[in-house]
């Protein structure tokens, strides 16, 4: 039997309904990100780079693409002792149910965790964009003899009420934790990354399961209760880029944030790479009359038109006379000749026929910063006109 001190449980079951058309068919962690990646690549690569070799992925909502993408985890070198395990809801000897909350999802997999006999359990979320070395956090946890360590980061004050907010004592011990408070008294937000001593977590999960009032949620129930019981709960301050991509606007900006973080040293440095289960596609082809400025272009793309400040995913086709601006085109989408695309996020395999105008401006105030979102597999007929800020769903 292979034992590891720390194993990771990755929460990937949420629907992510605030991403509108993008999550209509696929789970949020499986959404394509910055051309080459899917959102979950960041967490899985963090685990791989931190040498955490046992990862349980808790799936529930539309898991097919996510499961097939992860496979046995060879893309992240998890096809090793331990490895990655997809854990959907299942039947027990007496009963079975859907995961009713983040804590319940872990509760239902106590057997899985016990099987590996870890000292610590790392709980992470599959929908955050950040690069971290979890070992630093584990060291911190051990050094402070903490029973629970919560990774926190500073967020702008006006956004603090969207997160779980912590207040600290001088020694970084958490005095108070408030989940989505209306009037936050701190701008230190929980990143949804926790390290628990496994015996404590197991106990807390079992108590929580008995509690009929509970939402079975880490932020709402488990953490406040552990604080109340005077356990040693510490905050680990994470310094670095972190973003929750829960809504279209943050998804859009996170993509361009990652793009602007690329520089010479990042391109040439091979350590702490973000791994992904890449499709092996030929090099991008840029045509004789193409114009590409300030954009990120993936393998398999064919660009014959103009692309400004945009991100093109794997295998995207941009036809002649097309103008793409400020947009994120997800893999295998096709934009045909003479269409104009402005500030659009297209799903995967979208086809926009020729002479269409997507993201046309109008005079009313713009919804979602004027970002137009198109569901995957949609085909927009020749000459389509879609106004800015619309969510376009596929006709079924």
């Amino acid at each position, binding site marked *: 039997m292979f034992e590891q001190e720390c194993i990771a449980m990755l929460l990937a079951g949420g629907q992510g309904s605030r991403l509108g058309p993008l999550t209509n068919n696929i789970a949020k962690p499986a959404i394509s990100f910055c051309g080459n990646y899917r959102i979950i690549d960041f967490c899985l690569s963090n685990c791989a780079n931190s040498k955490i070799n046992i990862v349980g992925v808790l799936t529930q909502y539309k898991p097919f693409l996510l499961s097939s993408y992860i496979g046995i985890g060879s893309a992240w070198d998890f096809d090793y002792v331990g490895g990655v395990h997809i854990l959907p809801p299942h039947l027990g000897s007496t009963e079975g149910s859907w995961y009713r909350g983040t804590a319940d999802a872990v509760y239902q997999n106590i057997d899985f965790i016990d099987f590996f006999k870890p000292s610590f359990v790392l709980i992470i979320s599959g929908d955050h964009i950040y690069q971290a070395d979890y070992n630093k956090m584990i060291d911190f946890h051990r050094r402070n003899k903490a029973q629970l360590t919560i990774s926190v980061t500073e967020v702008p004050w006006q956004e603090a009420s969207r997160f779980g907010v912590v207040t600290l004592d001088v020694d970084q011990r958490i005095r108070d934790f408030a989940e989505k408070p209306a009037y936050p008294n701190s701008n230190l937000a929980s990143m949804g990354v926790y390290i628990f001593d496994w015996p404590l977590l197991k106990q807390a999960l079992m108590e929580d399961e008995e509690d009929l009032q509970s939402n079975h949620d880490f932020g709402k129930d488990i953490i406040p209760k552990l604080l109340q019981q005077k356990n040693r709960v510490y905050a680990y301050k994470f310094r670095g880029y972190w973003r929750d991509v829960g809504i279209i606007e943050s998804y859009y900006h996170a993509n361009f944030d990652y793009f602007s973080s690329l520089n010479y040293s990042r391109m040439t440095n091979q350590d702490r790479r973000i791994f992904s289960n*890449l499709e092996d596609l*030929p090099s991008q082809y*840029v045509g004789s009359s193409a114009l590409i*400025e300030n954009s990120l*272009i993936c393998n398999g793309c064919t660009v014959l038109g103009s692309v400004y400040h945009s991100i093109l995913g794997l295998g995207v086709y941009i036809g002649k006379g097309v103008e793409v601006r400020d947009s994120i085109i997800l893999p295998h989408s096709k934009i045909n000749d003479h269409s104009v695309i402005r500030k659009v996020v297209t799903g995967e395999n979208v086809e926009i026929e020729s002479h269409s105008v997507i993201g046309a401006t109008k005079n009313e105030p713009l919804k979602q910063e004027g970002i137009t979102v198109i569901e995957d597999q949609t085909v927009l007929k020749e000459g389509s006109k879609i106004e800015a800020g619309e969510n376009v769903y596929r006709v079924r």
Partner: protein
Amino acid sequence: MCEAIGILFGNSRIDGLQGLAEKRPIEALPFGRYRLLDFALSSMVNSGIRTIGLITPYHNRTMLSHIGAGKAWFLERKAGGLFILPETIYGLVGRKEQFFLKDLALNIEYLQRDQAENVVISSCNQVFNINYHEVLDYHEDKNADITLVYKKFDTPNRKNSQTHLIMDEKQRVINFNDYDELENSPLNFINMLIIRRQILLDIINEYQEQEGFDLLDAITIKLKSLKIYGYSFQGYIGIIQSVQDYYQCSMDILDTKIREKLFLGLDRIHTKLLDNPPTCHGEHAKVRNSLIASGCMIEGKVENSVISRGVIIEPEAQVINCIIMSKCWIRAQTILNHVILDKLVEVGEGRVLQGNSENPMVVLKRAKI
């Protein structure tokens, strides 16, 4: 389809590459985001061949670090998979044999252990994408002992070392012919063949003691006694034996029609994946008619060029009609025209390098200019 195993000759000793193939076998020469052997290897894998033996040369480090256990080609498996075969240390550098019989004799156990009916043999210094299903079907339809794959070129091909086939009206090969100036549309043997495993074993046993004997020499002797047919390959093939071939073939793949045949069909060319970020085109980048792999940072002008993975081209640099291999760094205001940069070359600010289309300038690996 009947079962087949594959043998790839990764140890041809071609010596016309001005140093590009000095520290690495030509089969491991980078070609865009690929290495040459990816084409032969992927073709076999895509044809359902699950057991492949690769004969490696003595300086095999780049080749082995590229293919590893064959994972990128789905060859890392319990049943069959990739077999790394040694070459014989017999013979001299610069010998011309394509399928050296002593190399096969040394690895005869690989051929004896498997029960497959046929063996597909190919060299891997060529850019092509073939599905052997059809060739194997043809081989069985003709009930052939050996099927040689040939390509009919429209114009006479100037390569001396090419073997030409002479066939009767039933596609049976009756003779071989070396390069002939007068021949209008020669049928070039393109270094791929299918042979019945038992017949191959017999040939090895019979001729392995012969000095410098090639499989083709043995086949020539057996022309009358064996049923040998030719199969016409319709796709694109770029045979690489010189810097000019290499340059021309790289420029060929800028042609969309050729690229579609090679890369965009159902059978894909696989290569080792590197998990690079996508390629960044900067504020003032001007890229025209070029192929660019992942992980590049392009801020200058690129025209009619093939750029491999992880290349950096700084602002106001001009890269025109060039082949840039991976991880090269081209500093600002540099001008490169008709240049081939091997891997990890750094070109300093403001340098001007100029070759011409007949004689592209070659800069060797890790050079700093």
